[in-house]
């Protein structure tokens, strides 16, 4: 439902149901659907923290920084931030912008896991990622075309119960051992976005 530029009311107007439905009802619905879309975090390849082995490999493609995820065994990229206070508990959407390094066919199995750092509770001396969510994505028609794969993760256990204002880490992996991961060669990751669902 699009936004309708607001009418200026005039004395003597007959206020019709149609006018109220367009100017008031529909515009309020539009606003209600948009007012909470405030959380949006972008992670570039350079932001990766790779404490895990085997490590994802940094590289470039036509000058664009990217991370190389191989096809032989699972590799991870870890990003770290704080969940903004704008988070209203609707769950999080994680989006990966990727392309295959080489032309070909097949599917990549991507995983996403959150690790929340609850104050005076979680000990950072050991990892405590929540359960992984897996999404598979088929290669584009041509290597170089960017695909955007989306994880829709409900509030609560799916995101390790990260709360507004909490520190967290996000671990992105290519599950090369997954039954549906059959794309040969590297998957190249260019951006990761975290936003409210």
């Amino acid at each position, binding site marked *: 439902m699009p936004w309708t530029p*607001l009418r200026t009311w005039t*004395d003597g107007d007959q206020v019709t149901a149609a006018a109220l439905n367009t100017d008031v009802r529909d515009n309020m619905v539009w606003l209600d659907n948009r007012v909470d879309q405030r959380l*949006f975090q972008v992670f570039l390849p350079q932001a990766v923290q790779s404490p895990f082995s085997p490590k994802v490999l940094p590289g470039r493609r*036509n000058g*664009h920084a990217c991370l190389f995820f191989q096809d032989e065994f699972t590799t991870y990229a870890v990003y770290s931030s704080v969940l903004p206070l704008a988070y209203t508990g609707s769950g999080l959407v994680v989006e990966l912008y990727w392309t295959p390094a080489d032309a070909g066919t097949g599917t990549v199995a991507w995983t996403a896991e959150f690790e929340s750092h609850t104050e005076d509770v979680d000990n950072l001396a050991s990892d405590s990622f929540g359960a992984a969510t897996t999404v598979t994505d088929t290669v584009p028609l041509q290597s*170089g075309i960017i695909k955007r794969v989306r994880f829709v993760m409900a509030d609560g256990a799916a995101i390790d119960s990260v709360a507004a204002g909490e520190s967290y880490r996000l671990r992105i992996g290519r599950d090369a051992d997954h039954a549906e991961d059959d794309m040969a060669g590297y998957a190249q990751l*260019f951006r990761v*976005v975290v936003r409210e669902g």
Partner: protein
Amino acid sequence: MAWTTPRTWVTAEVVTASVFNTHIRDNLEDLFDRAHTKPNLTWLATSNEPPAVDPATPVFRNTHPLLNFDDATKEYALFSGVLAPTYTNGGLTVELHWMAATATTNAVKWDVDIDAIASEGHDIDRTTWSPVQTVTDTCASASGELIMSTLTYTHGAAMGGLLGGDMCRVRVARDGSASGDTMSGDAQLYKVVLRET
């Protein structure tokens, strides 16, 4: 448009156009202006992804990381991001925070263009820059003091067709050999902001 605390309606009152305009039209307009999160990306000099040819030179000045742009050879810096999906086609503004390395007079000509990388369509192996926008601004009255130069892009082809949710790059260059660029010595780029206008 200023917000007015929503009025309490009273049975049998005469509702005038003025009341409707203030409490419905103007308040909905104010909410519209505030409702969506206008995209706002900030890059420091350290975020630069230097191009292979004629990159700006990273330096420190009183521990502030900067990028030096020569006053003769055209040099470039590149910054990467994602335009938030809350972008509402309002066009973009780029702000350059910069200072003179030594000069206290004369102007610098900045060229900025945008690379829109749409998912499912654009080949990342081919780079297509938007038309260049330029701004020529006089340096601060003292070397070491910042100037903020602003460039605006109307929605559409002027910004390379960039849409909300797309990956993007912003390329900043100093056209030191242009007739309007008269400042001697390096121009030092400190920060870059990309936001919806």
